[in-house]
């Protein structure tokens, strides 16, 4: 997979004269990448192909290698639950990523205002990321439950007509998942963006102050574009979480009320392990995979694969 010969940017100008020597010195780099190449080939590509292959079989509890064509896919696209899952992950993905970026950016900017106890705030915003959802989901579930949490508390204070029943409302339940997701992920985004803010040149602030540009404009029009790499990193990390969204849903709603908060990863998991239906589960996984590739491939290609020069 990793064969040495593409000219490297460092030596581009002197390529003809030095290429042979460089080839030799680049061999260790290729060797260093070899284990990863093997893992990618065997584990990532191997498992992807295996998954795709199984989606064309009638496997139930154990994999078997027969061939049923697209039967599982036609089942899948007739399946209410899968369609709801797909819609939910779209809603969640958009709201969660944009919400984390906005909230994370705001938190980072506000923390960057020379506040007291900065460390305390930072830790408070960041700690949720260190906790697993197995039980923090329960805490959220209680808080959002109309009979136990917020609604009851506000009513007990005397506001009898206060209603907050998103968790048990089919139309709104998915948004409670977004809220808990924001709680979990916004801190990480904040940390990454804060790091970016701290890297902004101090001269910029002096200059903008002298020019009398309002602070919010500087943040929006100058700083934010500078933070692009951080935003991209954060988005990638968050997007990985979106595709794999599972624990949170299981802990908070188990996909309910009804099937209102089902998500694709849960569909896959349930069919692989609970319902002894490997074929349908892998078909769903394949659809997820294709979707992810379709969305990401252009970006990955443009950013990482095509440019043969040194990436900016």
């Amino acid at each position, binding site marked *: 997979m*990793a064969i040495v010969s593409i000219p490297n940017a*460092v030596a581009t100008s002197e390529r003809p004269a030095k290429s042979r020597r460089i080839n030799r010195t680049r061999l260790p780099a290729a060797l260093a990448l070899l284990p990863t190449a093997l*893992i990618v080939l065997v584990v990532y590509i191997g498992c992807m192909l295996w998954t795709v292959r199984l989606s064309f079989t009638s496997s139930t509890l154990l994999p078997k290698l027969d061939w049923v064509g697209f039967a599982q896919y036609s089942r899948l696209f007739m399946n209410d639950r899968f369609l709801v899952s797909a819609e939910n992950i779209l809603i969640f993905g958009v709201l969660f990523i944009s919400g984390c970026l906005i909230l994370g950016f705001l938190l980072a900017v506000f923390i960057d205002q*020379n506040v007291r106890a900065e460390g305390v705030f930072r830790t408070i915003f960041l700690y949720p990321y260190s906790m697993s959802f197995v039980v923090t989901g329960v805490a*959220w579930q209680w808080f959002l439950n109309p009979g136990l949490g917020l609604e009851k508390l506000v009513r007990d204070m005397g506001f009898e007509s206060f209603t907050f029943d998103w968790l048990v409302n089919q139309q709104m339940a998915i948004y409670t998942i977004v809220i808990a997701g924001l709680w979990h992920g916004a801190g990480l985004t904040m*940390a990454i963006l804060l790091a*970016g803010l701290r890297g902004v040149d101090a001269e910029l602030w002096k200059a903008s102050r002298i020019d009398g540009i309002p602070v919010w404009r500087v943040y929006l029009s100058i700083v934010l574009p500078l933070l692009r790499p*951080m935003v991209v990193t954060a988005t990638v990390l968050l997007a990985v979480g979106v595709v794999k969204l599972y624990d949170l849903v299981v802990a908070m709603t188990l996909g309910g009320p009804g099937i209102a908060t089902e998500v694709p990863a849960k569909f896959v*998991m349930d069919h692989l392990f609970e319902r002894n239906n490997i074929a349908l589960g892998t078909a769903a996984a394949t659809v997820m995979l294709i979707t992810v590739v379709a969305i990401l491939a252009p970006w*990955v290609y443009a950013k990482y694969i095509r440019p043969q020069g040194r990436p900016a």
Partner: protein
Amino acid sequence: MTTVIPQGSRPRRLTAGRIGIYAFLITAALFFTLPLWIMIVTSLKPMDEIRLGNILAWPANLTFDAWVKAWSSACTGLECNGISVGFWNSVRILIPSVILSIAAGAINGYALSLWRVRGANLLFGILLLGAFIPYQVFLYPLVRIFSTTGIYNSLLCIIIVHVIFGLPTMTLLFRNYYTGLPIELFKAARIDGGGFWTIFFRVMLPMSTPMIVVAAILQVTGIWNDFIFGLTFAGRENLPMTVQLNNIVHSTQGERAYNVDMAATMLAALVPLVVYFVSGRWFVRGIAAGAVKG
């Protein structure tokens, strides 16, 4: 890098704007601490009080029983030794996995960003896509692969699994980090005749501390909280703490002691929490040190 001072506007007097800033931060902090608060007060209440009461209220009968029970006597099957059993297993899994996955990420990131190896970008592209596949899909084929090689259900096995699934993120972070470093450093080292490994150990690695901290924080969190891989690959002798946590929390047909659940969760989260408290500052400083220049 020591110049990590806030760069924003910097009035010191208590203006309306300052009050607004604090109001926003404190409101946000309340939102973020809410679940933790619920968990803490619940863990300190006896079960009767939990059944009856207000989930936000401070316990009327403060008790630490649940914590003691969660740590040392909650039942997870026949054994009633709490989650302390898995603690050392988790540590044994954590340390080598974190070290090896960071090493792998650093080497990959270095080779990918500064050495032009044919096919490397394709390799990286696939790796990135791989990060988006739900883990569950990998379980069955990986079990088959590991059992043919004879290391299935061992400490080594679970460590390899963590390294494999840490690769995409670790590689991405280090690749971006090294790409952001001034290229002149690398050029100079090359002109001095440094080879691949020499430059890595002498030049790159010493400059990588900030990124290593970030990577370590992410990996410690991810690996410590992992449940499904530990359950599937570690073997009975090495089951991590999260498996016990899950056993306590998710009994299928039995009473759920919420106070013990909450205490167990907080105990299980202790290691990542400590890491965050201790290194939160470096976490931010870490990425600040170089990543934005790209």
